[in-house]
């Protein structure tokens, strides 16, 4: 597959995963606006901004105990993360970039995939925060996440299982692992900052990962932070766990086959295996847990670098260095 095409599909997968992740976080957050105390609302914003490693447009987040201020602030913060044109990680920006990558690679994806994505893009294109705020912001975020889920379903049903598929999936899973590691670190930091342990902080995290029922089944309903984190990181049966996502990532990487340079390919796969080992151990808890998540995040960034250098932007050998990686077809 053409390297630039593979890169475009990989980035499409990454951007749409990013849009999905943020939509789900904002859904949780806006749901909490109806009845949560301001402190919980600010906890939520801290967690989201911490996970994204982003400063709010207005500067640092400051706790205001007034309900009205909490809502006004929430409007501005949600707008920043949803429609703000200067924010490359806003939902609309991620959608636009995912769609733009798809547009450039339309000949590699199915017509059904394109139409599905394009319709979502058209829906988002002219919306403003006010439009969704006066109705039901949580419904908007739920619909947006559902549209991405639909796109994934259409992709699964219609995309030929060649390298196009594998690179889309690779981008999707790598982004998921990286975002999850970052979110879990932000959760630990925010809980520490807000001092008072509250079950609500952890149940909303479980819900984000569609893991609330699974946790209850396994843990008799008592919320224990380390058990929550252990489930989300190491459980191989939970769809969005780091463990399962890294396993999928390794599978996709193996399916892509050898790149032009076998040593580079081996290094890339080895890095993925390293990630698998990190998420395969028993959850250590405490400071060690935070450090482990940091290693996973760093490992993802390194893996992205290796994928880029192995498949997309590899050095072309000069004629006197032999004809490795060259083939006639």
């Amino acid at each position, binding site marked *: 597959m*053409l390297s*630039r095409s593979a890169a475009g599909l990989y980035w499409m997968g990454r951007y749409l995963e990013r849009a999905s992740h943020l939509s789900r976080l904002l859904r949780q957050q806006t749901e909490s606006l109806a009845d949560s105390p301001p402190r919980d609302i600010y906890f939520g914003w801290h967690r989201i901004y911490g996970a994204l490693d982003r400063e709010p447009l207005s500067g640092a987040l400051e706790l205001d105990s007034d309900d009205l201020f909490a809502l006004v602030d929430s409007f501005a913060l949600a707008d920043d993360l949803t429609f703000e044109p200067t924010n490359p990680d806003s939902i609309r920006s991620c959608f636009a970039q995912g769609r733009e990558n798809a547009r450039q690679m339309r*000949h590699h994806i199915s017509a059904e995939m394109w139409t599905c994505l394009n319709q979502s893009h058209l829906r988002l294109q002219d919306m403003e925060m006010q439009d969704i705020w006066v109705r039901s912001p949580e419904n908007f975020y739920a619909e947006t996440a559902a549209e991405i889920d639909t796109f994934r379903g259409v992709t699964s049903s219609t995309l030929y299982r060649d390298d196009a598929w594998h690179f889309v999936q690779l981008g999707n899973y790598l982004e998921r692992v990286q975002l999850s590691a970052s979110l879990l670190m932000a959760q630990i930091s925010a809980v520490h900052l807000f001092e008072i342990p509250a079950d609500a902080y952890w149940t909303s995290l479980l819900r984000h990962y569609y893991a609330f029922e699974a946790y209850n089944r396994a843990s008799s309903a008592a919320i224990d932070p380390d058990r929550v984190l252990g489930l989300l990181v190491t459980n191989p049966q939970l769809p969005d766990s780091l463990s399962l996502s890294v396993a999928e990532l390794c599978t996709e990487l193996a399916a892509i086959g050898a790149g032009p340079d076998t040593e580079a390919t081996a290094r890339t796969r080895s890095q993925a295996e390293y990630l698998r080992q990190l998420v395969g151990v028993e959850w250590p808890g405490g400071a060690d847990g935070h450090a482990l998540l940091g290693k996973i995040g760093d490992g993802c960034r390194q893996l992205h670098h290796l994928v880029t250098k192995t498949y997309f932007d590899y050095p072309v050998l000069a004629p006197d260095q032999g004809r490795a990686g*060259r*083939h006639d077809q």
Partner: protein
Amino acid sequence: MNFDSYDLDPAVFDEMFGSDGTPHPHCEDLYDTLGSMSSADLSAIGEWVTRSFTNEGITFTVYGDDEETERIIPIDSVPRVMSATEWGDLTAGLKQRLSALNRFLEDIYGEARIIADGVIPADMVRDCPQYRLEMRGFRAPHGVWVAVCGTDLVRTNDGFRVLEDNLRVPSGVSYMLAIRKATKSAHRLLYRLSRVRDIENYGLILARTLRELAPEGRSDPAMALLTPGIYNSAFYEHMFLARQIGADLVEGRDLLVEDGYVYMRTTSGLRRVDVIYRRVDDDFLDPLVFRPDSLLGVPGLLHAARLGNVSLVNAPGTGVADDKSVYAFVPDMIRYYLGEEPLIQNVETYLCRRPEDLEYTLDNLERLVVKRVGESGGYGMLIGPHSTAEERNEFAALLRADPADYISQPTLALSRAPCLIEGRLEPRHVDLRPFILTGAETRIVPGAFCRIALRRGSLVVNSSQGGGGKDFWVLDD
């Protein structure tokens, strides 16, 4: 729906009605169907067709428009129809014309017999900016310089005429196919009853044509479509065609030339490319030969083509044959190379480089269409009957300053076809761009991109200037 407000003009050929106001025999089914539909039904079909284009992102890009670079071409849902007999006559003329044009290109970049024999003046060819000295001695595969041609035809009361030959990177075929898909679905019963000839195999025929032009010994050639990129106005078409022919859609940065062979960078290493359907203009194709500042091309590409290691479709240098001045000599080319009379006529053309033609043009600006030879897309032209005195004065100055850069033609009464305009059927001027493919043989799918001048009375059909498109049906007899 009726045609009560449809005004016929005896000076203009109507694609639906004869001069007596009755529909042409091959248009009767369409006439009856439209008559049985309400205005609301027809409008709903029109909206559905437009919505399907929006949802599928069938767009073109407008240069210099920052607010909205992706646009949907306006589609009229009423098809234009033609009988098989008429189509047969047209295709014979189109094949004849392309055959002569390919012989002309082979000749002028080779022995230049047509110049030596005085059929066409040497300066007409060699002063043409599209004449590429670098292509002299080049051997196009099977003598096919132009494998993909989009010829613009117009019809008047005197029959069809060729308005121009597009021999470089003709576009519009994706619209032909997309409009067909949408219109066929919208008018499915009429489509079935009318026995419309199929055009869906265009991609297969194009792929076959490209394969036939592959370098010798490459029985299963690797094909690529070279695009300038996402910002090109025809990017949708490039993507669409790459998909249709199973080629990789590449940009210049994806390719490199090594040891006289062209390779593309893939996830499993460099892979040889045998045939490049290039949609990049000559100027930008190879910075070592043409514009050195081009970032869109591939250094060494022409060298590889000269060695016969890669086939470029269309070959560089073909623009000299669709130059607006050289156009005037195409009928002579047909006589010279084929010993035949042209089956489709040219539009009468005045070459302003000739003093007598310049004088005639200046004296008749209000009646003529003046075109700059190097322009396309409806730019750089004056339509005399629709111009102001100020515009005519401006063009007169331009003509005097550089007469060789202009030609003029009589303003043609382009034929009109019924279009749905604000819920009513009204006549609008149309042209026709069929696509002719030449590999081991010449093939034409029975269809064309039919362009419409949507503004009442306008003759400008270009999509970049407010034109639209409609489906074109060739009916079985």
